[in-house]
């Protein structure tokens, strides 16, 4: 056997040095042991780390969510209380905080609730009549129930003129924020993929906001939005809006947070979609130009189908990260005015600060549940579907 390095020969299983009279060295035996257990050695560290720092806290958090935790000398006292923490959020005294304030539905509220219900029933009915599998049915049933609950929640709060709670705020950030970020990110990536000069300059500049710590972005936008001392205060004064404060009105406060969040996260969508656009062979686009297609036609018929699989996955990542939003509302408005900009993560953090660990864990679990249902539905119903079609 002609091996290049001595080490390779040494650790070959079953190989012993020519001089068999000497016992194999300790290093040799260790290497042989390593090689024999390579299968486990490669994956065990990751599994153990995830078990200790992710699964263990997850189970512990579940237990906390079902109990009342009291601090006592030298430790904690945990008392099992069943679903009390959850029912308090959904039906009890904290309902206004989590779901929003309910009154009787207005006409618009009824219209939204009933049309959402109808659409979901129709969707389930079509699934049952076309193709049916038990797992698929259960999955769709869970998705349908969650979406139904959310649409009734919005119908009873937002569409009936009542304030909504942290669940609604989180969903607002995720869906409206991600939609804005996706549209702008896609547009910038498309523009930047055109044959223009200075592409590298734009690429570097557009990437900068992602490098700033989210908490820094929060304070930076507070400076920007200041209507008396901020850089745009002359403009505010000119419009006669000296007394206007972004953080004083629920909707401007939410908009303000979405602007900050978009400023920070558009670069992420931009950089990946730009790579996707640059991956399209130039020939395709040029063939389109030869055939006399307009720019819009080239985008719609040539670029978009190539970019779409990437775009869908980027959106999935962004939605997953979007549900975790906590730094920006905490810094920019500290959840205010009232609870108008409080995301579920922040709600949980505030509950922890008031040492109500059970409530904090219950809210965190509700967040986890909503995130998992929405992300898994998105993945199974949209991503997988798109992949199959291509």
């Amino acid at each position: 056997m002609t091996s290049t390095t001595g080490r390779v020969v040494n650790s070959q299983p079953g190989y012993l040095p020519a001089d068999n009279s000497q016992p194999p060295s300790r290093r040799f035996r260790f290497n042989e042991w390593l090689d024999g257990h390579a299968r486990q050695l490669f994956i065990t560290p990751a599994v153990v780390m995830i078990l200790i720092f992710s699964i263990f806290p997850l189970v512990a958090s579940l237990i906390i969510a079902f109990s009342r935790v009291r601090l006592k000398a030298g430790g904690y006292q945990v008392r099992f209380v069943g679903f009390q923490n959850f029912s308090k959020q959904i039906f009890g005294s904290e309902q206004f905080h989590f779901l929003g304030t309910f009154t009787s539905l207005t006409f618009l509220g009824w219209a939204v609730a009933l049309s959402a219900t109808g659409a979901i029933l129709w969707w389930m009915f079509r699934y049952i009549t076309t193709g049916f599998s038990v797992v698929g049915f259960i999955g769709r049933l869970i998705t349908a129930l969650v979406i139904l609950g959310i649409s009734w929640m919005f119908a009873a709060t937002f569409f009936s003129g009542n304030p909504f709670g942290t669940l609604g705020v989180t969903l607002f950030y995720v869906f409206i924020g991600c939609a804005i970020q996706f549209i702008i990110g896609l547009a910038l990536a498309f523009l930047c993929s055109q044959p223009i000069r200075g592409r590298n300059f734009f690429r570097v500049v557009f990437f900068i906001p992602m490098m700033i710590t989210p908490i820094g972005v929060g304070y930076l936008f507070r400076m920007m939005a200041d209507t008396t001392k901020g850089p745009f205060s002359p403009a505010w004064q000119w419009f006669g809006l000296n007394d206007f404060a972004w953080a004083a009105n629920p909707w401007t406060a939410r908009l303000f947070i979405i602007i900050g969040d978009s400023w920070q996260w558009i670069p992420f969508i931009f950089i990946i979609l730009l790579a996707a656009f640059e991956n399209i062979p130039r020939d395709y686009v040029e063939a389109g130009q030869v055939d006399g297609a307009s720019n819009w036609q080239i985008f719609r018929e040539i670029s978009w189908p190539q970019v779409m699989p990437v775009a869908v996955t980027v959106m999935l990542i962004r939605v997953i990260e979007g549900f975790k939003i906590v730094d920006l509302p905490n810094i920019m408005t500290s959840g205010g005015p009232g609870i108008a900009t409080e995301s579920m993560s922040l709600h949980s953090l505030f509950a922890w600060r008031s040492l109500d660990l059970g409530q904090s864990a219950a809210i965190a679990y509700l967040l986890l549940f909503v995130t998992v249902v929405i992300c898994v539905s998105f993945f199974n119903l949209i991503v997988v579907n798109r992949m199959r079609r291509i």
Partner: protein
Amino acid sequence: MSNVSNVPPRGLFARLFEPPRIGAMAPGAKFIVYTLLLAWSAFVLFPIYWLLITSVKSAADVNGGPVYIPFVDFIPSLHAWRELFVVDYADTLRAYVNSIIISLAATALAVLIGSMAAYALARIRYQPNLITILLFVLVMAAALFAIGSYGVDWRLVLVVGVGIFYFLSKAVASRVHVPLANGDILFWMISQRILAPIVVVVPIYMMFQSVRMLDTHLAIILTYAVVNLPIVIWLMYDFFNSIPKDLEESAQLDGATMIMTFREIVLPLSRAGLAATTLLVMILCWNEYLLALFLSTAKAQTMPILVAAMNAGERGILWWSMSVVIIVMIIPVVFMAIVLQRYISKGVLLGAVKG
């Protein structure tokens, strides 16, 4: 240009939006593209410009209304820089060093462990038993319940729990085998990213408290490494799959062990993927705030905590000092991004996202 004569004459507007030749852009379209891109650059750069000038403003300049151009509108002074790097240099330096240690170590740990796992999942077939896993989770839940509700000492519970788990897995799991595949493990690991930090941070806090490791570097390093492990596994799994297996197979024919193949053939080949992953994880660790807030009180404080600390006291927010901290936080990231930029622009991240 022989074909020009064949084109019928058109209006000025139509000609503006007609490419002069294939592969080039029409002048009108070019104008629109540049306008939009420059507008967005302004939107991105103006806040950063404001950050830079705020860091050299005096308190009076900030509080007296907006002033825009140094040396014209106001006299820049380095008082905030001086305060942070001369007067309070101990605090600033400690946070900076902490941040550097923590993000470097956490990134190294996450990239090492994550790429090992990703390589194993890309090359070796695993068949873990679902029953063993369920048993493990059940025993863990029971153990936690015993600790929480009845105050049993955690060391005792650990020993007994391991014993019970070992016994049960020998007794039950060896008879009933429900095998999972590599795809399941991969999905399990990547799906950990869905966990919002807030879900797990309280138990992690209690865990480190019970072993007296709160406010240490190691606690934050381990937590950051695990939080970012899913990203590493996802990106690197895809990258390893794109490397042809022939090289590794010929190395194995020559008698190289798996560890050697990984270290001397696979890792050098996947330099681009490693660079992009490292940069991404590094940025995330460097900027993380919530976990650091829970796990550090004084000694192990990182830079984001220092940013938040500028909002303390009766003097209100120290905008000038905060700007300085944010600026010095950006510098290392920009430096790393420039060093690793060519790997990012190659679209390494794209591969994983394509799925």
